[in-house]
């Protein structure tokens, strides 16, 4: 391996490409060559840093200087000043932690703790060597030297809960599959990230694809499966490409395929693409889709650990859940439990979007508050405005007011305070964003994404949409809120799968926290007279 005195990291991901990262990288390489620095300075493509509102970012190591908002025109200055003369171009310097540093400094001891995102933005995601250099595949080697049940025990002891939204204990899920006598079992990675406002899995897949390959292989060894399948959104073109490359490289290194590391254990991973259906994030709908069927849910029980893909025992875990596995194996369950709260161990990756100064991805121990996320990491509301409302957990989540800013977010607070974490969405809307049209859009989303299998969801989501539209258009009937409440209860009680059952969350919480807005719309409403024809 060639040694360079200076490394410049250019985060290249779906978002930074939009801001011109590839152009900057190209000019940077040209300029470095022009100044004969190619022997000393290497330019490395990395995955996303999770910073989105600082334009194109360059990280210079070992100087540990981060430049933001870099344009191709700035590149020559950086090369001549910083690289040649050693003078930092201060006008472009950004705080690499943004405001997360303040989190770290807080007395609570909470900070941005990177477990899941340990490599994202630091390594070249297309280089297996760089992943290995950061302890990559060390957890697999360690696991293969243990008994499968010992591996599961560590995961169980860590109290890791699924990060896809439901929070099911991962160790328990694995042990259920391990117990099944079937010769054929499957490990499925749910990478159909479709919950509006969630973009963390994309960052993991684009920034650290090998962590998923390694974790799935460990899961295969622990449960006795030989086949892994990643089901990934068709829109995630770059994620698909990087994951496929990672799988190919792991094969070449003997870390995937037959007789892994000479242990006799064989495992392989395939990539299946989704076709743009939100419901396929539901585990049974996802399995149906892999089986070349319409993505509709199945009856439960039996659950996937007993009767899953192709009727065989199947582990279905989210991308983020898998990304936790290698560090847990390497560092032990006690280490993992030292993060988060007693009931909710480890970290959570939050996707911060909407009207905040710094949109992006932040990984913090569970138990963080919305105030810390929005103000300390996010830098507050754009334009110094007040918060109008916050949607947590995604469209299938809760709409809350700023009264909820100081509630610790963990799996327990979901029940205690009626606030969901779901997949980690924190969508902030300023005081200028009207609530009802937003909710109408959420209703439209569910109506559009309902798979149509069961009547309550198929017809109920349409009714919710009509009611919300009537509130927006000020044509709502006086008893709209009562009818809405009955309808939402019905959806929750009788929908076939989690999609329909989760629809009420946003609307019920919005009515609870912003009743005044609904009542004002009702007061202004005039029910249109039915026309002659309709009356007949």
């Amino acid at each position, binding site marked *: 391996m060639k040694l360079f005195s200076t490394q410049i990291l250019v985060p290249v991901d779906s978002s930074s490409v939009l801001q011109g990262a590839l152009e900057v990288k190209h000019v940077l390489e040209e300029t470095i060559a022009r100044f004969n620095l190619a022997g000393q300075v290497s330019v490395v493509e990395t995955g996303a840093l999770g910073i989105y509102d600082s334009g194109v970012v360059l990280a210079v190591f070992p100087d540990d200087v981060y430049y933001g908002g870099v344009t191709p025109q700035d590149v020559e200055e950086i090369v001549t000043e910083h690289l040649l003369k050693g003078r930092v171009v201060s006008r472009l310097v950004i705080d690499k932690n943004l405001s997360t540093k303040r989190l770290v400094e807080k007395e609570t001891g909470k900070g941005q703790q990177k477990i899941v995102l340990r490599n994202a933005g630091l390594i070249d995601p297309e280089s297996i060597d760089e992943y290995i250099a950061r302890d990559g595949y060390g957890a697999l080697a360690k696991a293969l030297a243990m008994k499968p049940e010992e591996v599961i025990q560590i995961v169980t002891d860590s109290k890791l809960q699924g990060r896809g939204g439901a929070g099911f204990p991962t160790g328990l899920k694995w042990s259920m599959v391990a117990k099944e006598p079937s010769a054929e079992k499957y490990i499925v990675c749910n990478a159909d990230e479709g919950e509006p406002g969630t973009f963390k899995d994309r960052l993991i897949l684009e920034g650290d694809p090998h962590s998923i390959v390694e974790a799935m292989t460990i899961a295969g060894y622990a449960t006795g499966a030989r086949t892994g399948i990643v089901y990934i959104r068709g829109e995630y073109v770059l994620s698909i490409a990087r994951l496929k490359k990672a799988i190919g490289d792991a094969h070449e290194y003997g870390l995937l395929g037959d007789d892994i590391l000479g242990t006799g254990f064989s495992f392989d991973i*395939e990539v299946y*693409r*989704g076709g*743009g259906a939100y419901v396929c994030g539901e585990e049974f709908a996802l399995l149906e889709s892999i089986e070349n069927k319409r*993505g509709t849910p199945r009856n439960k029980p039996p659950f996937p650990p007993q009767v899953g893909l192709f009727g065989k025992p199947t582990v279905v875990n989210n991308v983020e859940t898998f990304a936790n596995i290698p560090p847990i194996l390497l560092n032990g369950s006690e280490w993992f439990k030292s993060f988060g709260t007693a009931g909710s161990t480890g970290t959570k990756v939050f996707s911060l979007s909407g009207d905040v100064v710094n*949109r992006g991805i932040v990984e913090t121990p569970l138990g963080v508050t919305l105030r810390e996320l929005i103000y300390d990491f996010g830098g507050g509301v754009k334009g110094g405005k007040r918060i109008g409302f916050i949607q947590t957990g995604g469209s299938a989540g809760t709409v809350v007011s700023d009264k909820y800013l100081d509630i610790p977010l963990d799996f327990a607070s979901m029940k205690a305070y009626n606030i969901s974490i779901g997949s980690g969405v924190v969508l902030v*809307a300023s005081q200028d964003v009207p609530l009802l049209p937003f909710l109408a859009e959420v209703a439209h989303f569910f109506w559009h994404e309902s798979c149509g299998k069961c009547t309550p969801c198929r017809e109920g989501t349409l009714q919710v949409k009509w009611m919300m539209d009537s509130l927006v258009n000020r044509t709502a009937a006086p008893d709209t809120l009562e009818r809405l409440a009955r309808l939402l209860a019905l959806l929750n009680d009788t929908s076939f799968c989690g999609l329909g059952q989760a629809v009420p969350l946003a609307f019920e919480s919005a009515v609870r926290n912003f009743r005044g807005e609904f009542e004002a719309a009702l007061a202004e409403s005039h029910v249109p007279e039915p026309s002659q024809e309709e009356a007949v």
Partner: protein
Amino acid sequence: MLPTKTIREETMELNSEARPAGTSERLADTDRVFLQALVEANRVEHHGRISYMDILFELEHRYGNSLPSPILAEVARLVDTSPAQLNGFVTFYTMLSTAPRGRHVIRVCTSGPCHVSGAPAVLSALKQLLGVELGGTTADGEFTLEDSSCLGICGVSPAIMIDEDAYGNLTPEDLPRILEAKRNGGRQ
């Protein structure tokens, strides 16, 4: 690359929606050979299994962003399923279409984060610029306008995708330039 014209020309006049997959249409030999090779290659990639999605994405690329029914009928035969089953699969997923679409498909994200940061303005500007409603295709056959659920790039909302390219932090003023570049075959 095999010639792709044959089927496309035949099916331009054919109303795929009114005619379910399986309607017998003549299929050129080149198409038949291509489909056979595509399905076999997929079978190898998936160790004896098959991914319809992989195959259909590939076919959409080849046949101008839609799936002509004679092609679907042949695929159904090759993967040993009924045309009705395959049609049911195709019509379930929003990224697949049996109706003819334009050369470029524009997907406008209308979900929460994009809604909050300006998607409604982007969508109405696109409707005006293209002169079509949602689901419509421009008269010159260049663009089909669709709305989409979350594209997963909420850090740069509001966002759209045109074919496989994503665009973020959009304002209505950015759109004419982007459309013009796409029309001319470029990225930006």
